[in-house]
């Protein structure tokens, strides 16, 4: 895949550090007049200019702390890069959401390391789990840390800046041959949670696996995601934020905007562009462009989103 030969010594440490410089990224979201816009954090000056009065929040995803394979031998280091970026932002976000795969193997040390780095943002972080966060023997480490006050396997909602946020879990009880799964209990809770909300309340749904079908051949979708989307149909502004696929994808369907965030750990191939969705090893020089940030702007009274793809290099 890579054209790089990892011989006796592999990539030198210095080279790795160089190529990791820009690897960690997040997406800054700002809500103005109830409509979320996303800003790349690649250029903090640009973010500062664009940050109109209102509430802004960050999304980071797929930090895979513990991952040390050739696609990125130091996923913790790139998470730290992302955190440094966040800390350098002139407009401090109100809070952050993490859309799962905090760790690679759900080890206690991985959770501890992730917490140690992410807490340096001094932001409230609202987590949802990825499938990599639920693979310890007793499936308890994520819940011990992030499950307080949540329902079921860890779903919950909260309000901030006039926006209703709903964190969903779609990585549990997956069925053979199927996709991500919300399950009837969670769907019933969601329907109830949204009941009575004013239809003008902006809704943000966030979960690890895309709630929309991106590429079923690689499991990139949620079996019963359509039912969740039915419950938000009547709302004027709905934003669905996901991770899992380690690349930016977006689409708008009526009042619903779908967006997936990049990983802070390693890129994955575009759907069908490789034999599998596994970690993609790219040449050092290319890594920056793979991990660049796209700016996605939601503009009021416009159905289509304006997408500005901004690679970190080139």
């Amino acid at each position, binding site marked *: 895949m890579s054209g790089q030969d990892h011989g006796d010594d592999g990539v030198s440490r210095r080279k790795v550090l160089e190529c990791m410089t820009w690897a960690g990224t997040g997406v800054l979201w700002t809500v103005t007049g109830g409509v979320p816009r996303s800003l790349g954090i690649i250029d903090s000056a640009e973010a500062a200019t664009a940050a109109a009065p209102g509430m802004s929040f960050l999304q980071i995803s797929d930090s895979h702390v513990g991952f040390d*394979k*050739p*696609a990125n031998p130091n996923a913790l280091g790139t998470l730290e890069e992302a955190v440094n970026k966040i800390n350098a932002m002139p407009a401090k976000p109100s809070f952050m959401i993490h859309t799962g795969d905090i760790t*690679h*193997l*759900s080890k206690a040390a991985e959770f501890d390391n992730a917490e140690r780095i992410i807490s340096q943002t001094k932001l409230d972080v609202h987590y949802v789990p990825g*499938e*990599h966060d639920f*693979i310890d*023997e007793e499936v308890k480490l994520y819940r011990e840390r992030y499950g307080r006050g949540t329902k079921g396997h860890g779903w919950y909602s909260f309000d901030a800046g006039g926006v209703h946020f709903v964190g969903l879990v779609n990585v549990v009880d*997956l*069925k*053979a*041959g*199927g*996709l991500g799964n919300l399950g009837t209990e969670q769907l019933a809770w969601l329907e109830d949670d949204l009941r009575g909300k004013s239809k003008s309340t902006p809704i943000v749904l966030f979960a690890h696996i895309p709630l929309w079908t991106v590429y*079923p*051949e*690689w*499991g990139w979708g949620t079996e019963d995601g359509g039912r969740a989307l039915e419950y938000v149909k009547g709302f004027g502004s709905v934003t669905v934020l996901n991770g899992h696929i380690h690349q930016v994808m977006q689409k708008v369907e009526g009042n619903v905007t779908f967006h997936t965030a990049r990983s802070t750990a390693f890129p994955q191939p575009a759907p069908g562009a490789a*034999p*599998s*969705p*596994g*970690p993609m090893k790219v040449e050092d020089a290319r890594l920056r462009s793979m991990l660049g940030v796209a700016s996605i702007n939601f503009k009021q009274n416009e159905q289509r989103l304006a997408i500005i793809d901004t690679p970190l290099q080139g």
Partner: protein
Amino acid sequence: MKTLNRRDFGVDLGLALAAAILLPATKARADDMEIHIDNFVFQPAELKIKVGTTVTWTNRDDIPHTIVSAGKFRSKTLDTDDKFSFTFTNAGDYKYFCSLHPHMTGMIKVE
């Protein structure tokens, strides 16, 4: 690769010892089967085996996987190069999948 070689050697040695002591009663051991996980695919995806055969799965991806057959067997999470073995003592069709990536499915037919 070193790990793999050492492990293979260990298996060979074990078989040789068993054969030396128990031949021909242990003939069935020679039918033990391997399934590899490469690129999120079980290879081979379908396997026909005889009762008593042990199947060993090896994860060769950079991403963890599991081997789950509902109500029959369930592996721990297999990191890169980890293995899981199961001995099939009853005839039947065993569908299985990766509980982390459920689009990955496989079948063991035991006769």
